[in-house]
């Protein structure tokens, strides 16, 4: 189960997700990307942010969330200390969540550290290491 703290919350497909703010370096408007041949399909491609090439992982695809067509104005959540960014549809903001509001993730749903059911819509807290571990082969 996750500790409480400040979470960056965002939308991917129809779902709402959060990651600890300390894991975030910055958010940026998604720019032109080169698709990566040979990468699993949840990888959108590579974006160059401030000269640094970053692998971009589509959160909605990785988490199997339905999306009607490609996101209209996708954003990149650039992660701290890894050569990766998350592709998200919209950023909600930063939210403080107490540990006692976080419940264990429902069985069978991978890559989550917990869920906050008191939030509307439900906030799913992403397990980044599992997310990339699942996708990097």
């Amino acid at each position, binding site marked *: 189960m996750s500790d409480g703290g400040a979470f960056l919350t965002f939308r991917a497909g129809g779902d709402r997700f959060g990651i600890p703010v300390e894991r975030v370096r910055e958010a940026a408007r998604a720019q*032109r990307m080169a698709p990566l*041949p040979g990468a699993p399909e949840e990888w959108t491609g*590579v974006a*160059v942010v401030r000269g640094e*090439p970053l*692998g971009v992982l589509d959160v909605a695809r990785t988490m199997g969330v339905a999306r009607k067509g490609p996101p209209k104005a996708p954003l990149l959540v650039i992660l701290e200390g890894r050569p990766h960014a998350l592709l998200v549809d919209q950023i909600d903001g930063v939210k403080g969540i107490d540990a006692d509001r976080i419940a264990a993730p429902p069985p069978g749903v991978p890559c989550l550290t917990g869920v906050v059911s008191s939030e509307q819509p439900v906030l799913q807290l992403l397990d980044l290491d599992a997310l990339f571990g699942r996708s990097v082969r």
Partner: protein
Amino acid sequence: MSGGREDARHRREFVTEAEVILEQAQETLASIEETGEDVHPDVLNSFFRSIHSLKGLAGMVGLPGVTETAHEFEALLDGIRMGRVPLDAQSREAARAALSGLSDLAGRLSAGDQSPAADPELLSRLRAASTPRREEPKQAEVEIHLPPALERVLTDYERHRLDTNGKKGNQVLLMPLELSLEGFDEGLRGAMTEAGKVGELIGTFPGSSESPELMSFLLLVGAPPVIDPAEIARRCGAKSFERLDVPSPAPVPAPPAQPLLTEALLEERRRAAVGTVRVTLDKIGSLLDLTGELSLARNALRRAMDRVLPAIGDRSARHEAQRAYANLDRAVNALGRAALATRLVPVEQLTSRLGRSARAIAAGLGKEATFEVLGGETEIDKILADALADPLVHLLRNALDHGIEPPAERTAAGKPPAGHIVLTAAARGREVVITLEDDGRGIDPQKILAAARERGILPKDAPDPEDPLELVFRPGFSTATAVSELSGRGVGLDVVRSNIGAMKGSVAITSTPGRGTRFDVIVPITLAIVESLLVRAGGRSFAFPTSSIARTLRAEGFRVRTVQGREVVSDEGEAVILVPLARLLGLPERPPAARRTIVVAEEGNRRAGFEVEEIEGLLDLVVKPLSDEVPRAREITGTAELPDGDVALTLDARLLLDRAQAAAA
């Protein structure tokens, strides 16, 4: 006693300063000895001045031994610069003795001798050397008339230089120079340097200026008559010039065959030797990154201007913007080159390490060998120089272990007992070619084939490959008949090749049995900027480093044949495998066009054709390696931002060739 302590401090300070002066003088003298007699007067003059100031310093601290020696030395140098004493062997030897005498005095001083005495023998030797051995300079044959105001302030030395220029048949120019108050010193220094390059700055005098905003100077310059005086004035930044000599119709003397030893040249050598600042590679790396970003910002500005400018009606405003952009563009490019240059080091840094390794390895093997380096001044990226150390040591060890024969065997073969290994480095375009050649026993291709079959590297029934020597780069191959202590380390030439391949380089082998073996290592000068061929495949942009491209072909369909279900294209009479790049990378393929566009990549002796949809052009790209944590086809090694803002993926030709060959096998 505090006075005593003060004195000791002064002496210490003197020693420090004296060491600096003497070290520089030592270098100057060494350069003079190399060059011979044709030394630029500025060099002699500053040599003279440095000893003069040493004398002054010694006088202030109260060191009569040093003062006396420096005084006699100064007299010798004065004689030389004034032309009374020739710069011959006698004066050069006396100068060398004077320098070592002065260093000796400084050494004794720092060892605690409070007032070391001068060496009387040295003093009389200096005196003898500085006795005029040439006639006093006569009145110049070509009379040069100066404006009277200038004539009055001319020093003896300036008069002497003026006459010397006249005698040589040089032109003498007086040039007014107007410099703004702000930064005039820099402007003046620049003009003086320029004057020293084309000829000789005889003197600088105050001029008269009407404007209070301007500083005015007069430069008196002597130069060979072959140089256009207007050009000299232009280079010094003077608007006009006055020629003071009488131009003679006599044939002009040929310019000296050997370049003069000038102050600029000396300064360059000095800077190479001592004027260095240690900077960490990180800092240089971030400078390069920022430069890269700056050039991308410049590209973005270009794009924005292309969109916006046509909408601006004011023509002069448009031109102004274009001009400003052009200036920015030039500066950014120059900055890029300068930033890159900070990362380059001479190959020497690497080879001096190799020389030590060579001696140690040879001694361990009981062999004799000399190691020679040619082209050590060739520059290469520091990062690559470091990365090349291991592969080169390996090749060197290989040459000493397997190539160079034991002394007895060499003598029997009619060779000198000591082997000879030569490393040659040379820049070739954007690459550095390093060859390592030994005069050892060479490699017998039949033995290689036999060994490869025995070790299962080559199947027993397989035909002989065209180039058996290539087999030595296969994993598991070792040419040693007896496993020596060194070759038992388990690192083979395959590792050398893959290490060099990782630097976007290549290594090839050639050998003549009985005569020796040669490795050619080719690496880019730098990895930061890669000249690339941009192609489209699967509707996307990819960049090949041009260093790995043999050529591009536009082949009509009939030049492509199908052999055993595989397409091959004839490339200069040789059939090479043809693979669509899109298919190799798992991208959607387009049906082949009638005229097919093919990039022939090459690595060592391997070649393959990659079909692309389009060739977009040649570009210098700032390539950023992609982390291993980003999943993709492993032939993709990095990214590069294109001028239009798109991102291209860079390809590793070696890995692509592996794939193409695997696909064909």
